[in-house]
């Protein structure tokens, strides 16, 4: 009966739509099934966070271990305070680890890279990373370069 074709057609259509949504979620945006509770908070203060945005990656040795969840101005120290959610299973970060704001690729976006220190004490939920390296701003870089050249010539 004509009804059957219509119902099958609509059913397929709806399935296709849902499939599209799933594809978009998993393959295109790389949504993973990890729950939010599997993470703990870490803070870090930077002199300059220029270019870093919320939802940027937090990675160590190139492996993504978390996300930046908030960026605020610390009114007492006048530095940028970055809040990060790091996966719970990475719970052995030493207290003297370094957080740097790096660039992915030449025109890429900024992300936070964490490199290990050597201390025995470990970072816990709510700890602050003290050793930080700010984002590289192009103007500062050029300024440094010129300064170096000038001082070289001056020698």
């Amino acid at each position, binding site marked *: 009966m004509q009804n059957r074709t*219509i*119902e099958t*057609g*609509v059913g*397929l*259509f*709806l399935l*296709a*739509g*849902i499939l*599209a*949504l799933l*594809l*978009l*979620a998993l*393959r*295109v*945006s*790389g*949504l993973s099934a990890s729950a939010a509770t599997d993470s703990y908070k870490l803070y870090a203060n930077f002199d300059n966070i220029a270019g870093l945005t919320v*939802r940027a*990656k937090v990675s160590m040795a190139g492996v993504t271990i978390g996300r930046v969840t908030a960026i605020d101005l610390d009114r007492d120290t006048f530095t940028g305070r970055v809040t990060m959610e790091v996966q719970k299973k990475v719970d052995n970060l030493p207290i003297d680890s370094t957080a740097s704001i790096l660039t992915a*690729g*030449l*025109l890429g*976006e900024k992300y936070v890279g964490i490199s290990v220190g050597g201390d025995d004490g470990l970072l816990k939920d709510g700890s602050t990373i003290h050793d930080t390296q700010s984002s590289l701003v192009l103007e500062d870089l050029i300024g440094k370069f010129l300064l170096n050249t000038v001082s070289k010539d001056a020698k």
Partner: protein
Amino acid sequence: MRKKSLMERIRLLGRSAIDIVAVFGRSGIFLVHALFGRGGISGGFQLLVKQLYSVGVMSLAIIVVSGMFIGMVLSLQGFSILANYGSEQAVGQMVALTLLRELGPVVTALLFAGRAGSALTAEIGNMKSTEQLSSLEMIGVDPLKYIIAPRLWAGFISLPLLAMIFSVVGIWGGSWVAIDWLGVYEGSFWANMQNSVSFSDDVINGVIKSVVFAFVVTWIAVFQGYDCEPTSEGISRATTKTVVYASLAVLGLDFILTALMFGDF
């Protein structure tokens, strides 16, 4: 032709303004009555399924073909521009973001307005002019619930689904062009894309846009049919109005939504 005096022109202008406001009011009442009015119809689900077929499934062909072509063109164009900066590997994320945030919802809505929207207007206008709507009333069936409501819901459901299918097909088409034809490395194509496409910001926002567009386009299409003059010219004028108004509304709303979602407020 009689020459119109200035006073007359001003009066006509005022009359048009009032008419436009009246149309908005009428269409608002129309919408609320159709969606939320009392007196549901038995077998309403069957009607909805039938409309989903004629509105959604029948639009699949044009959506899929257009999506594929647009995705492929985006990939081609994007590649040549990005090559200037040595960033060909970013073509994946460019195609995906463009489609998910903008072209998916907008182009699908425009195509939908042209294909399904005009068909709805013509169908309802035809029912009006052959007095089918009056017959329904006389038999005791509310045409707003029997004819209009299923078509409204069908549009609200179909367009977001079509927009997602459009984006997926477009991304796939773009990937085919980029990877198989232009030689972008498959791994970095998808990896870059996954890294920069955020589900909640890009995919969901795109879906929200298409839901808003679905609402507006279907509402306009159905109202124009219902409100038209019951003559053949009336119907053809109404069909044109549907396509024009719906397209303008989509583009205007797109700007507002984009500013709200992706602007820096």
